Structures are given as structure tokens and as C-alpha cells.
């Protein structure tokens, strides 16, 4: 602070500007002394700002970091600009240096005068001039930065799993321990889900003292974010309950497409047409597949890829299931002729090859077609050589596609997560975050994510569990991003533009006050909302208009 003539007290900023020589990489091209002299010569243009400008060999080296630390302390720097390499290389290095001093790391900036200056500009004079321009822009900008502080949040390590099928039960088992409760919420009256067979985990889940099972119950409301969700449950008998948890795993499973949807397949109630999942269930329960009149069919056709065309995807598991079923029928009733009709065989992995071998060995007839249609009990097969053939069977088993469960839409709305083009829950990132969603703390397991095998379902479930186990560690706190958006309430009109563009659901409408509210724990700081707000009511910390404008103005001076 310094006293001025007017009696007002003004802040004096002491901005340290440190230029890294980076050996010949910077100093060999850029005349650092000239840069320093140029900037110093104009230092009177900053009001109440003292500039400290130095150069150093390698600021990122051990001694360099120590030098910088000492300089910050000795000069009592209030702001720091380091002109060196790309922030990708050493931004965090120098933030770390600041953190060892009283200087808030967010009152520092790195200027890239290597990758985007000395290395790409041929002429040394031009590079020198350019470096000075960049540095001036950053001095101007750093002066408008403000201190930011990390705010660690307490977390609740418990998890809610929606859906008691294979994926849901696997997730529950993978999570439950004395350190963590799991709430397993199932819509129907029993566990097991859509697999139609008794899952081996069922007993373990029921006996697990750390898993609370809610049957005939659905999620009715949810608020909160990773580590702190409040979830409303509604049971079939109308009872409401509220539970709290740190994460939500969606394992609601899927449905099968209607085989007649395509128009290429038509049959009546009385025809012996049974979809694959039904046939599997019957075979599992009864040990054979009989016609409605109780007799054994002499010929059965399993038709692959029913619904692939309409749904626009290959479910990836039907070929395997179809061949397995075909082989099982042959094994259980060798007198039944079984034909598999397919377009492409999609049997990835060693298991797939085994299934195909089993089917062949058990005498299943395999017919490749370009396309198949069904009318009543008669298949019209379009062969690969261009001919076609009509064949009748006693029983026909279409392998229907896996489609999203009916609840997907309402749950997605409740959790504010998007659906993909096929109506399944959309993952946060197809590759790098396939089990996550845009709502942090909400994860997707099993066929709620898309068609997949039981094994893949369980892997997804374990991946969800993995996310929870590693992110919600009992006793540890989580540190949300600090360079996030804040709202200037007086400027906000509550128009909702920001809500519409935010994919993370980080902004809520406070309808009572007629404004938008940012949940800083959820915001990732991209700034899209900021650019959507005509009122200037939003401000992304560290990327404010004022900061960016000043940098631009300086650079163009």
C-alpha cells in the first residue's frame, strides 16, 4: 500500500517478469535483453505497478525453481509472469513454485515464447518483438487475475444402484464393504433382471449385510452431485423414502425389439414364432422346446439380425446366443433339424469361435443370406449367389435386437443426462469415459449403455464400481475445479441460455428469484455459458472478458 497525494490508499502491485533462456532455444533466437529493456522502458505506463524483470538460464530446473521461489519471496511479488515454454510443459511446475510461497498460484501466468515464438519465427528481430508483445499482454492480463482457492468437499462414499439385474448386482457386490453401503433399487418384485436365468450373484447380494435391497421401488427424484446426492425412492405401495449417496449407477437393462417392426417379418399369434430370449428361457426351464400342441418340432429356424436394419446397429450378442441356442437344441433333441439363417456372423473373440465350432459340430445347418423375410412359418431366403429359396419350418426363432428399456427416458430427464441417437444413455465420452455420464457421479452399467454380452455388462458394472471406489474414498475429500463459472446475480435475467448450452447440468434455474445458479462443484469451466449470456452475468474465473480484452488490447497496441 502506498499513500498518494489525494489521501486515498492505493494498492501497489509488484509484478515479477522472469524470462527463461532455455539455452539456445529461447535466448538463441530472442534478444532477451532487448525484450527486458523494451518492457522496462514503458514501465511508467502502469499505474501503481512496479516491474521486476529478470532472465535466467533454465527456470524449470531445480536451481531455477529455487531461484524463482527466492525471487518471489525477496521481492514480495504480488503477481508473476514467466516467459518460457508451452503451459502444457511447465504451467503446473511454476504454479507449484508459487504454492511454496505466499503468492497465490492463480496470480501467475506463463507466456509461451518458445513453441509459439522462438521455434516458429525465423527472423530473430521479429521473434524478439513478438515475445515482447506476448509478455506485455500477459502483464496486462495477470494484473486482472484474482486469487483462487481450492475448496475441498466432504463426500458420502455410499452408492445407489438402479436395477437388480446382472450388472446391478455385480456393481453392488463390487462396491459393498464395511466402509460403504450400497442401495440396490429394483423396479420389479425380484432380482435377476432380463437375463431370464438365475444369476449366481443373487444369493451373495441378498446375504450381503452392506447391501440394502429395495424391491418394487423406483427412483422418483434426485438432486446433488458427485459425492453428495439426495435420492427420493418411491415404492409400489406408495411409500416415499429419501436416501443419500455419493454416486448413482444406472443398471436398468434393456428390452428386445418387436420383430414385426420391420415389415419383413409377419406372423400371427398362432404361428410358432418365439423370440430368442423367450426360447432361451423355456429351454432353460423345461429342458426342451415344444410346439403349442405339446409335440416336438421337426424343424426349427433361428433367424439372426432381426431388427438390426431398423435399429441401425448390430447388437453384437445375437449371433452367439442364436448359435448357442441352436446347438443346445440339437444336443437336447438330436432328432430336431436346426437351421441358423444369418447375414454376417459377428462372433468376436475366442469364445465366439468356440460357439461356431460347437454349432457346426452339433449339426446345425448354417445358411448365409443377403436378406431374409418371414411370412407366417415360411422363410424367404435370398442366397449369396443371387438365387432365392422359400422354406417352411415348424418353429421359427427370431433373434430380436436389444433396445433401450422404457424407463430410460424418464431417468435421463431426472438425472439431466442425454440419450444417444439410439435412445440409450449417452456416455460422457465414448472412449475415455464410457461408463460415466455428463452428470458427474452418475454412471452407466450393462445394457442400459447399449447392447452387450452378460460378461461385458458385468465389466461395465465393475468399471462403474471402479469409478466410485477410486473417486469416493471414505475419509478423503474431493477438490472441485476452481477455474469455474460464477454468476453475477444482479445482471442475471434468468433467461436460461446458459442452462441450454451447459452439457454438465451445472446450472440450475432458481425460479423464485428468476435467476440462474451455478453449481461450482459440477462446473468444468469451459465457458460456453459465458459466451451464451448477453447480459455478461456469467464470469469464468481466470478467463474473464476483462482479462482477455486487456490481453488483446495490449497485443494490438
Amino acid at each position, binding site marked *: 500500500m502506498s499513500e498518494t497525494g489525494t489521501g486515498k490508499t492505493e494498492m501497489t502491485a509488484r509484478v515479477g517478469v522472469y524470462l527463461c533462456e532455455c539455452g539456445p532455444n529461447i535466448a538463441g533466437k530472442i534478444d532477451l535483453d532487448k525484450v527486458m529493456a523494451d518492457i522496462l522502458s514503458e514501465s511508467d505506463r502502469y499505474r501503481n505497478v512496479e516491474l521486476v524483470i529478470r532472465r535466467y538460464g533454465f527456470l524449470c530446473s531445480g536451481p531455477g525453481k529455487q531461484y524463482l521461489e527466492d525471487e518471489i519471496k525477496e521481492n514480495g511479488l504480488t503477481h508473476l509472469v514467466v516467459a518460457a515454454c508451452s503451459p502444457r510443459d511447465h504451467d503446473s511446475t511454476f504454479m507449484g513454485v508459487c504454492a511454496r510461497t505466499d503468492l497465490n498460484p492463480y496470480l501467475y501466468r506463463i507466456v509461451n515464447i518458445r*513453441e509459439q515464438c522462438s521455434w*516458429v*519465427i525465423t527472423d530473430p528481430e521479429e521473434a524478439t518483438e513478438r515475445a515482447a508483445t506476448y509478455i506485455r499482454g500477459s502483464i496486462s492480463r495477470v494484473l486482472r487475475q484474482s486469487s483462487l482457492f481450492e475448496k475441498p468437499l466432504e463426500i458420502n462414499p455410499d452408492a445407489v444402484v438402479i436395477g437388480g439385474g446382472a450388472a446391478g448386482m455385480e456393481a453392488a457386490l463390487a462396491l459393498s464393504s464395511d466402509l460403504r453401503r450400497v442401495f440396490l433399487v429394483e423396479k420389479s418384485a425380484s432380482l435377476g433382471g432380463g437375463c431370464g436365468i438365475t444369476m449366481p450373484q443373487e444369493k451373495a447380494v441378498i446375504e450381503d449385510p452392506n447391501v440394502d435391497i429395495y424391491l418394487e421401488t423406483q427412483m422418483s427424484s434426485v438432486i446433488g452431485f458427485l459425492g453428495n446426492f439426495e435420492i427420493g425412492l418411491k415404492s409400489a405401495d406408495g411409500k416415499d423414502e429419501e436416501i443419500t449417496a455419493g454416486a448413482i449407477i444406472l443398471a436398468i437393462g434393456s428390452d428386445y425389439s418387436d420383430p414385426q417392426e420391420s415389415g419383413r417379418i409377419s406372423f400371427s399369434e398362432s404361428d410358432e414364432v418365439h423370440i430368442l430370449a423367450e426360447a432361451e428361457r423355456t429351454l432353460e426351464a423345461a429342458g426342451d422346446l415344444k410346439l403349442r400342441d405339446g409335440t416336438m418340432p421337426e424343424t426349427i429356424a433361428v433367424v439372426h439380425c432381426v431388427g438390426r436394419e431398423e435399429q441401425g446397429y448390430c447388437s453384437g450378442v445375437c449371433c452367439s446366443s442364436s448359435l448357442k441356442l441352436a446347438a443346445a437344441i440339437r444336443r437336447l433333441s438330436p432328432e430336431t433339424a436346426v437351421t441358423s439363417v444369418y447375414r454376417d456372423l459377428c462372433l468376436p473373440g475366442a469364445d465366439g469361435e468356440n460357439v461356431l465350432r460347437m454349432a457346426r459340430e452339433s449339426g446345425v445347418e448354417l445358411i448365409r443370406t443377403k436378406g431374409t423375410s418371414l411370412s407366417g412359418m415360411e422363410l424367404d431366403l435370398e442366397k449369396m449367389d443371387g438365387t432365392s429359396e422359400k422354406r417352411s419350418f415348424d418353429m421359427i426363432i427370431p433373434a430380436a435386437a436389444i433396445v433401450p428399456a422404457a424407463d430410460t427416458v424418464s431417468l435421463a430427464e431426472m438425472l439431466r443426462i442425454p440419450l444417444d441417437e439410439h435412445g440409450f444413455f449417452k456416455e460422457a465420452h465414448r472412449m475415455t469415459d464410457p461408463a460415466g455420464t455428463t452428470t458427474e457421479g452418475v454412471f452407466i452399467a450393462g445394457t442400459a449403455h447399449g447392447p452387450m454380452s452378460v460378461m461385458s455388462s458385468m465389466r461395465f458394472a465393475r468399471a462403474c464400481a471402479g469409478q466410485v471406489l477410486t473417486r469416493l474414498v471414505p475419509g478423503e475429500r474431493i477438490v472441485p475445479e476452481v477455474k469455474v463459472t460464477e454468476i453475477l446475480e444482479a445482471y442475471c435475467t434468468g433467461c436460461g441460455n446458459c442452462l441450454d448450452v451447459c452439457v454438465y447440468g451445472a446450472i440450475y434455474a432458481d425460479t423464485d428469484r428468476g435467476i440462474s445458479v451455478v453449481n461450482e462443484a459440477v462446473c468444468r469451466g469451459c465457458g460456453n455459458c459465458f459466451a451464451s449470456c448477453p447480459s455478461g452475468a456469467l464470469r469464468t474465473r481466470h478467463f474473464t*472478458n476483462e482479462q482477455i480484452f486487456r490481453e*488483446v488490447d495490449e*497485443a*494490438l497496441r
Partner: protein
Amino acid sequence: MISDKHDDFTPRITSFLCKWCSYTGADLAGTNRLQYPTSIIPIQVMCSSRVDPVFLIKAFLSGSDGVLMGGCHPGDCHYETGNYHTRRRFAILKEIFDSLGLESDRLKLSWISASEGPKFAQVSNEYTEQIRKMGKNPTRKSVFL
């Protein structure tokens, strides 16, 4: 502080580069020592969707001969859909410039991925040349507020 040692002028191109793709692409151009003119003034932002069209107007009125906005390719946004919004906002701004008879070629949007160092250098070179042909931004002559 414009270098005037060449017969023709050195354009100043304010470049808003998203942290994840185009800034990284620009870095890669550097790592590969791909040379481009001194015209580019990079401003790093988290996402191209942070770039309010007003930034571009501001840079234009502050005397940028060209304004370049770099983002991840559509579909690749680190924040899911940010660059789709960017694209619409940019299209609107271009249209505004055209309708008012302002030189909309002084605004450029380019999708540059993190591995496209050569593309960054190429865009820089070509755009600089294009701007050089257009001449200095008339807003260089006086301060527009």
C-alpha cells in the same frame, strides 16, 4: 509496434486457440520447427465456445488485421458440444459482417486438432498471406470503441 522493414506490412492476427486441440496443435508446429509468419498472436482459452463473438469484434475493432479462431474438430470437443455452438455463433458473426459490408474474411474459423501441427502452420501461412493481400485493417487508422 509493427515491423515495417518489409515493403508489405506484417499482419496482426489475433488467434483464440482452445486449450485441448488447436493450442496443442500450435505447440506441435513449434516442436517440429515449422516456420510461419510473426503474424499470429495466440490467446489460449479453455474451449472455443468460450469465445464470445464479441471477442472477435473487439479484436477486429482494436486493429487486428485478421482474427483466427481455432477449435477441436466438430465431434471432438473436450466439452462434448462446445464447438458446435462456436460454429453457429461464428456463422452468425460472419453473416453480420457480410450484411454490413465489413470484410468477413478478416474472421476465420479453423478446426485444428492436437496432432495437426502442420495444419496449424499451413493455416497460419495461408491466412497471413490472404490478409496481406487484403491489406491493413481500416480500424488500424483510428481507435474504435
